[in-house]
């Protein structure tokens, strides 16, 4: 098993750092899956995390100048590591003006991801800062837990309103209630609702647009579905807020898929990064 990669471009380094920062705000521990073409930060839904799962996919070529991987075996040419993204975030934080950043899988007293940054210095010799981030190698028999999640059979898919607006609405609603109902229809309409003993608040969004999924431009759900019909899901508002607050990468497309009363599936797409987040409905 061997892994080495190098980033030289400052823009790529900053972008990669922002992605790692976003992931670190979503979870304390996750799995980093490395293949020849991609990196994935994966959190598989467990009761401990409240059932949320995350799939963040990066196309390696858009970030790294050098990328070499030798997986567990020839037919399983991948490496899966359990890592605390916060450590990675911390290591990258002070390397933002580095001339180069190298990441390597190494063995110190245990398996580590070693990050070395060459920093500008006052002399002809660069400063080198090295961080050894402890990781756990995930054995192959557990890999099935970390496969790409299947697109759930959703009822409605809709683009999200501007994230800043959405976030401020959710922030305020969080003060009033622990749960929030998100409903949307195929007419580009979305409502956010909270309902407590003391107060009910609904925020309405219109003309959001519905992403075309099927070949004929319609969504994969029943073609005879009434476009006005709302589908809804009730989620823990803190999980939604945590997701929205953590974002450091501004997506070029943000949408969500709703499985009626079951799952809220959020999808943020950027040129070279995609982030999917699944929030289960509250029981």
């Amino acid at each position: 098993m061997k892994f080495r990669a190098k980033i030289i471009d400052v823009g790529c380094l900053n972008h990669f750092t922002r992605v790692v920062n976003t992931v670190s705000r979503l979870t304390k521990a996750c799995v980093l899956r490395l293949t020849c073409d991609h990196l994935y930060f994966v959190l598989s839904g467990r009761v401990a995390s409240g059932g949320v799962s995350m799939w963040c996919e990066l196309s390696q070529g858009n970030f790294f100048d050098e990328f070499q991987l030798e997986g567990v075996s020839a037919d399983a040419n991948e490496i899966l590591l359990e890592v605390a993204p916060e450590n990675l975030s911390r290591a990258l934080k002070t390397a933002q003006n580095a001339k180069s950043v190298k990441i390597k899988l190494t063995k110190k007293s245990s398996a580590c991801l070693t990050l070395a940054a060459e920093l500008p210095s006052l002399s002809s010799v660069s400063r080198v800062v090295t961080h050894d981030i402890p990781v756990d190698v995930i054995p192959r028999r557990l890999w099935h837990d970390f496969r790409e999640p299947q697109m759930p059979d959703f009822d409605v898919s809709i683009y999200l309103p501007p994230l800043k607006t959405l976030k401020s609405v959710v922030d305020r609603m969080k003060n009033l209630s622990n749960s929030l109902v998100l409903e949307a229809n195929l007419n580009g309409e979305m409502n956010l609702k909270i309902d407590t003993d003391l107060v009910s608040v609904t925020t309405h969004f219109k003309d959001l647009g519905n992403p075309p999924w099927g070949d004929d431009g319609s969504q994969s759900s029943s073609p005879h579905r009434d476009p006005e019909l709302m589908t809804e899901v009730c989620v823990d508002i803190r999980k939604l807020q945590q997701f929205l607050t953590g974002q450091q990468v501004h997506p070029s497309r943000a949408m969500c898929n709703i499985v009626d009363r079951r799952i809220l599936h959020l999808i943020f797409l950027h040129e070279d990064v995609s982030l999917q987040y699944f929030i289960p409905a509250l029981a």
Partner: protein
Amino acid sequence: MQTLFRNNIVDKQNIMDCVATGGNVKVLAKAIHSLSRIGEELYMEPMEDGLALRSVNSSRSAFACFLLSPLFFQRYQAPSDQSFRCKMPIKSVQAVFKSLTSLDRSVEKCRIQLNSEKSRLTITLHCKHGLLKTHNLSYQDCEGLQAVFDKESCANVLQAQPRLMVDTVLHFPPSLEEVNLSVSSDRVWLRNHVEDDTDSSRAMMTELCLSSEEFDHFAVGSQTSITFCLKELRGLLAFAESSGLPISMYFDEPGSPVILSVTDSVLEANFVLATLSEDSHPKNHVNTKRPDTEQPPDDFMSDDMDSFLIAMETSELPGPSHVPTSPPRPTSNRKHSFSEEEALAEGPPNKKFCSLFFGSVLPTPSQLPNQTMQSQEVLASDSEDENQTETS
């Protein structure tokens, strides 16, 4: 013209009367703030060669002293018989100088005085628009506080601009307690130090390597590695950064204290920290420093992967593939060397550090004025001082 307040030009009753003006008020405030990072009490001693402000931590493994010369003050009056030493809670002094940022805009003058009739130390801030803020602080008489150290005899001396030190420390988390400093003939390494007993395989290890060229002065007698508490230093770093003064570092072998100083024509600050004795190289790092060769090849620069390839098993492992942990490190022999006062058992991070030697050897008259020489002050002075001179 009659004034409401009498100006006491010569006040025989004043034990101490010091006035700092202008920018020096802020410097004074920053010095006190730095000292607060070390200990809970501020020791104050007005001496003939200046006002000494000192602090020590509870386990006596960190000591700091600011000596402000008479030239630092617009007016400086101290008892010529060096008879007055006091201590007070540092928080109460900090309260006088709160809101540092607005100090230089609002405060024109700061007067510290002690009248023999009063049992309070009076600090008066003369502010703009005729505003006078008077603070009366209670204090305790005490013995002198002076750690024994001798910068001149240290084998290794480094000097750097504060910016270098601050940038270096940035790579380590603010909560980091202990740091290891290693030097070779042309390199300096700074690493976070992880305790034996903690789960060292789970801690993130950070190492920063600097070239000797980045230092203003680099004199390394022998390759050394010392471990000391970083937290207590941050006060000095902040002071040096704001003053722009270079920081000098004096150290010897592990176990001997490391001294960091900042000096200019009117003040001298010394931070003395105990170091772990008989420090062994942390096993968590593959040793990037090999004392017998000249320049250890940097792992990444040479890109030599072989020694760092992870030797991993295949999927047939029964459990999560944990690499077997390395054999336990030989326990360091942490003897408490030359300690007059045993380290107090408080504060786990500090108890293993040697307690600094707080001397009780009688000072010779020639040594007294110059603090930077090996000064050994009496902890409990005689009631009759043979060298008493006339007060003017």
